[in-house]
């Protein structure tokens, strides 16, 4: 099971290892590879969009193809890049941060990954079978219902499969945090990344089923002649918008909260101070999540819900700025008077704070319903959400990846290249999106394929496209860094950043059972406490004993594969119905197998453990 054994093993056995793994650290790597792959695909689509818009009346892409690229860019980035990359971080560190040997549901965790994986592949097969979805990532009815071909069917079924996976992952993290914490790891001692991931999981649990239903209705309308969104038959297209945004607004907080968590780890570590206002951070996180469910209609101000509904949703939306502001100030106060080390994760954090603040500010502008009639569906909205998503979520993901890279792989990414990556990406980002605020205010609608000459839109669009190239080059620098670092394979210690939390108290990468003995947690930032008051090592909470571990399993892969196959049957119908039969039989058969076959795991015996060092980071 040790890493050296893996390196010697052939490609076939490595593949089998990853296909059947239920180890959260390996699942993290799977999520990382999957998420990065789709991040690059989505990035390529972004470049195509910006090249099309570089000059007025450009014909680089056809209008139809542009719609497909635009739709897939948004869908891919949200569902197939940002979410899995966050899950990669959560899987890699959340159990370690709470001193757990494993997650609550290792099997379900693997299932979550494979569902995401097959959902993502399913969506992208549409490129090769007659056209990708083309109704925008929000797939508003009735456009999405009447969109020709099967593109939107790939959207509704692909996201359905991936969405089940997200739900599985969310439930797993919820129970992991509640039931698997080490002795002494009380809720109010949990690291902020664990807290925010925990709350994001609550949001997943209550938000994703609304999307599930929306996607079912869309599928039924398109493929089975239902009339949910068809006004001729009594249907109502606005139902889609409600369901989508009841899911969609919590979704943006599902994305940003874990990123907030990353920065709340990075900033104390490199300011050498405990997080300022820890309990208010926890409180603000919960408040954001709570309010996040009550603001969905701010995406629908122009629908005509009436002035009263609009006012209520406007006020609720603006209220979210308060807990968000609390967080911003807490980060600033943590920096205040700290011994700041300008490592690359810290530089990402420092870039994040002003960028995200601008995004929040435009958010409050959008939230004033009357003004939103001007901003809505213009490039102003595009600028807003890229400031929060790229300036918040994406910077957070990369800060987290760089910060925890040593924990995941035992190597340290080259700091110089990390800084290059940051500056290229950061400057490119502001070049690309800052001017889009003004493009929007000047009346450029979002999602249009092209624009006319002589409307003063040319220069800003040109600059925006140039910025996008900077971001692309920055990303390539990061990739180069990853390849270079892994080729070199230079190992670092278990605690290369001199950090504060539990995950840094064990070797990098950790043994498959994480903690040889359950750690005893004596307060917030437990490792730092031991460094200051003890011998720098976490004290064990139990004598050395046998460790229970789960068995590997191919079943999660099979369950997901079945749904993937069934999707084609449902979509193409006719003779292809047989695929639905095969697919559902595979899925249900695998579930039955899972339910009926005893799977009680195995034990690593004390004697084996005694041979392998003391389990600390040294």
């Amino acid at each position, binding site marked *: 099971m040790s890493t050296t054994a893996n390196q010697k093993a052939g490609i076939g056995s490595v593949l089998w290892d990853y296909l059947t793994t239920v180890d959260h650290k390996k699942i993290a790597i799977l999520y990382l590879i999957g998420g990065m792959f789709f991040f690059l695909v989505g990035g390529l689509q972004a470049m195509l969009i910006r090249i099309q818009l570089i000059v007025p009346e450009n014909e680089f892409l056809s209008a139809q193809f542009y719609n497909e690229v635009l739709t897939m860019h948004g869908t891919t980035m949200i569902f197939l890049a940002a979410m899995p990359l966050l899950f990669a971080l959560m899987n890699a560190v959340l159990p370690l941060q709470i001193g757990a040997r494993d997650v*609550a*549901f290792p099997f*379900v965790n693997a299932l979550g990954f494979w569902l995401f994986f097959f959902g993502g592949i399913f969506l992208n097969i549409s490129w090769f079978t007659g056209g990708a979805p083309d109704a925008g990532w929000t797939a508003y009815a009735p456009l999405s219902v009447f969109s020709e071909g099967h593109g939107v069917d790939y959207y509704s079924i692909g996201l359905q499969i991936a969405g089940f996976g997200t*739900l599985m992952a969310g*439930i*797993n993290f*919820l*129970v992991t945090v*509640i*039931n698997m914490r080490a002795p002494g790891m009380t809720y109010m001692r949990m690291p902020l990344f664990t807290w925010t991931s925990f709350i994001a999981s609550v949001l997943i*649990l*209550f*938000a*994703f*089923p*609304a999307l*599930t*239903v*929306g996607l*079912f*209705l869309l599928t*039924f*309308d398109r493929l*089975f*002649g*239902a*009339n*949910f969104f*068809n006004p*001729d*038959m*009594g*249907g*109502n297209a606005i*139902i889609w918008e*409600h*369901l989508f945004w*009841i899911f969609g607004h919590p979704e943006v907080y599902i994305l940003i909260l874990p990123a907030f968590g990353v920065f709340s780890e990075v900033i104390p570590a490199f300011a050498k101070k405990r997080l300022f206002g820890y309990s208010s951070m926890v409180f603000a996180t919960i408040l954001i999540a709570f309010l996040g469910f009550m603001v969905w209609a701010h995406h629908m101000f122009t629908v005509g819900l009436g002035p009263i509904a609009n006012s209520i949703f406007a006020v609720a939306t603006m209220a979210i700025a308060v807990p968000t502001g609390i967080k911003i100030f807490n980060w600033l106060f943590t920096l205040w008077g700290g011994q700041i080390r300008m490592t690359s994760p810290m530089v990402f954090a420092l870039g994040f704070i002003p960028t995200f603040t601008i995004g929040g500010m435009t958010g409050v502008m959008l939230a004033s319903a009357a003004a939103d009639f001007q901003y809505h569906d213009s490039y102003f909205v595009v600028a807003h959400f890229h400031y929060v998503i790229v300036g918040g979520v994406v910077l957070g993901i990369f800060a987290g990846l760089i910060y925890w890279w040593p924990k995941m792989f035992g190597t340290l990414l080259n700091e110089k290249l990390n800084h290059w990556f940051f500056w290229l990406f950061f400057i490119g980002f502001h070049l690309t999106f800052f001017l889009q605020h003004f493009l929007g205010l000047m009346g450029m609608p979002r999602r249009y394929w092209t624009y006319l000459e002589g409307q003063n839109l040319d220069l800003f669009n040109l600059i925006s496209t140039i910025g996008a190239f900077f971001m692309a080059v920055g990303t390539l620098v990061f990739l180069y860094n990853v390849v270079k670092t892994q080729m070199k394979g230079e190992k670092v210690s278990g605690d290369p950043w001199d950090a504060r939390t539990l995950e840094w108290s064990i070797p990098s990468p950790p043994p498959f059972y994480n903690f040889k003995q359950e750690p005893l947690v004596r307060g917030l930032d437990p490792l730092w406490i031991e460094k200051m008051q003890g011998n720098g090592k976490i004290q064990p909470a139990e004598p050395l004993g*046998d460790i*229970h571990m789960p068995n590997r399993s191919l079943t999660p892969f099979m369950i997901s594969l079945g749904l993937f196959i069934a999707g084609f049957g449902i979509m193409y119908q006719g003779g292809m119905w047989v695929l639905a039969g095969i697919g559902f039989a595979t899925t249900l058969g695998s579930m*039955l197998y899972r*339910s*009926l076959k*005893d799977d*009680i*795991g*195995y*034990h690593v015996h004390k004697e084996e453990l005694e041979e392998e060092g003391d389990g600390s980071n040294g």
Partner: protein
Amino acid sequence: MAEDVLKSGDLPENPERATLEGRNKFMGFWFFLGGETVLFASLFGTFLALRNSNAGGPAAEDIFGLGLVFIMTVLLLTSSLTSVYAMYHMKNNDFKKMQLWLGITVVLGLGFLGMEIYEFYHYVHGYEFGFTTSAFSSAFYTLVGFHGAHVAFGLSWFVALMIRNAKRGLNLYNAPKFYIGSLYWHFIDVVWVFIFTVVYLLGKVG
């Protein structure tokens, strides 16, 4: 110790929560039901928005008869009660009686499902009220059909567990499985109470 969970007899008082795995399952399943609640809430919301949108097709008061639905309600509510008995016997470590009451639960559930299929058949053939007839019909079949599918899934789950464990009896490994099966069954039952009220009662008198 790992093998101990497969031993039957001499179980603690709450066998479904005696192991960490059992407690995890128990809690994870509660969360899952929380998600299911949002799923059905979304379906109910959609139905409420479309319940009068029959687009010239049959309307609720034209087709619903409360008699059959009342019997279905009684069957399903009773089956919830019988599954409680089954869990009671599980806690008393009486496997035979647990199986018996689960068997009764399954029979009642099958009765419910059979009547639902008859009901749908009747609507389609007696009233030409199909899935594609109107927005109302789509919403009706989707909401009630999702519930029906849950019933069918729950029944298959119970039957599978009963057959699998018939010979070896209760142990710490399968007790949580039976228990969350019954949780699921209660949830389905509660959803039906809402369907009965929102779809049928409101459709008939509202």
